[in-house]
């Protein structure tokens, strides 16, 4: 990065990631503009979730730089990483709620750990965020008592409770029925509009991507192809265009996503 490109809130430069003999990326470059909704797409095993984990400093690349809000997280110690992570929120694929805490306690956890607010302020903020995701009456329930969609929304409330600049969402729509997909999608768009979060969302869900994405980063064979959903769908790359059309066939041609996978 990137002093010359101030609009990129997050950028990956020349990144190499390998897990043992399996190389996920060799020379990955991609940028995520500030305040916009970017959707990361690609076949299974293409490394979409790995990109989110790189941004959060949960995975360190073998080479390259990962810039988050102006800081190269690959060079930071755990303390420095924590400073950057306070500007991030992350919704995990399985929501990652703590089984032993109620929904409200889960949402309150990031605020309690920071110790910047009083109990009353934390309670008010938790109530507001649970209201944002439509779970105002679920605060006293345990995560195990929630449906998949409600768990996802509770995870989202926890991810946004500390007002992060950048919100990372790992497959927020997977396994959800169409109504819940619409609901989560509307929440993400609303958060982006109301609070100006930079959203980076991994997804296989084509209809929601068409509706919400201002930028799509399609990862295939360790390379990122960037464009709007319309540009990629109608672009010259047949593999990517087929991926978008596969939703109608409900099956992605193996050849079109091979090596790109998630």
């Amino acid at each position: 990065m990137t002093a010359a490109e101030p609009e990129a809130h997050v950028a990956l430069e020349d990144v190499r990631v390998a897990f043992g003999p399996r190389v996920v990326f060799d020379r990955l470059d991609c940028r995520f503009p500030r305040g916009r909704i970017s959707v990361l797409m690609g076949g299974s095993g293409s490394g979409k979730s790995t990109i989110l984990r790189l941004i959060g400093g949960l995975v360190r690349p073998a080479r390259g730089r990962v810039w988050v809000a102006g800081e190269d997280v690959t060079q930071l110690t755990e303390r420095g990483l924590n400073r950057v992570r306070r500007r991030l929120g992350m919704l995990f694929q399985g929501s990652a709620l703590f089984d032993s805490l109620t929904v409200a306690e889960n949402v309150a956890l990031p605020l309690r750990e920071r110790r910047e607010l009083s109990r009353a302020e934390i309670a008010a903020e938790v109530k507001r965020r649970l209201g944002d995701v439509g779970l105002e009456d679920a605060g006293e329930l345990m995560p195990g008592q929630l449906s998949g969609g409600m768990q996802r929304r509770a995870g989202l409330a926890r991810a946004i409770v500390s007002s992060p600049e950048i919100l990372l969402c790992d497959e927020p729509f997977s396994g959800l029925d169409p109504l819940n997909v619409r609901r989560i999608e509307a929440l993400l768009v609303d958060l982006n509009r109301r609070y100006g979060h930079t959203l980076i969302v991994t997804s296989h869900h084509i209809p929601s991507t068409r509706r919400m994405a201002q930028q799509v980063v399609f990862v295939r064979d360790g390379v990122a192809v960037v464009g709007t959903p319309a540009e990629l769908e109608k672009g010259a790359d047949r593999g990517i265009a087929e991926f978008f059309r596969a939703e109608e066939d409900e099956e992605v041609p193996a050849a079109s996503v091979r090596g790109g996978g998630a």
Partner: protein
Amino acid sequence: MRVRAVEAVGARSLAFVNELGRMTSFAGHILRTLVTRRPRPARVVQEIYDVGVLSLLIVCGSGLAVGAVLGLQGYNTLVRFGAAESLGAVVGLSLVRELGPVLTGLLVTGRAGSAMAAEIGTMVATEQLDGLRMMAVDPVDLVVTPKAIAMIFVMPLLSCLFILAAIFGGYLVGVVLLGVDGGNYLTSLETAVDFDNDVAGSLLKALVFGVLVGLIATFRGYTSAPTSAGVSRATTSTVVVASVSILVFDYFITALWGM
């Protein structure tokens, strides 16, 4: 063939040393959080409840049974030499010096140590620990350290309860069933068991076993593979490694303490 065998031994040795190094570093991390982070009394109390209170029944029940067996076996042996009145001493010394801390350590490993490893391993597999990291919270500070402290604190207490229950079990069999004089049972026990040597040594053993089980269980869970098989392996290896470590350390403490 021989070269391969030597290579295999070498690889295993290196893996063992590597594992020891990682565990030492993990222990250092726990100590660092103890010194540098704010205490979490509520979480420690919750863990003490999970490890200690929920183990009470199994520890006291097992203690009673072990004491009863010791009473029976001890009586059958002592009565041949006309020394049945020393039953309290035999039961008390075997329990305080060896059986109390060792059996408590093994029982707590099976009940609470394995649960600890499984719980942390599941948190790894379901990305809960990564969730904490993304909130800028150290998982060792919030999750691991309270569990390790609870195990260290609870083990000596459970060991004492095991010994008391076992002495009572021996009393029931020896005095109530077999007719040994109750006063002699308790007097011989009191005379034989020395506080500075036997009781202090027993508490030291239980404390060391608490450190071992707490460290091994949390380390195995924390470093488990994020899969159901990984959680299963962590749980099994916690029981195996902690049990063997308890027996090995028991020998060294006994030898060094001069019991």
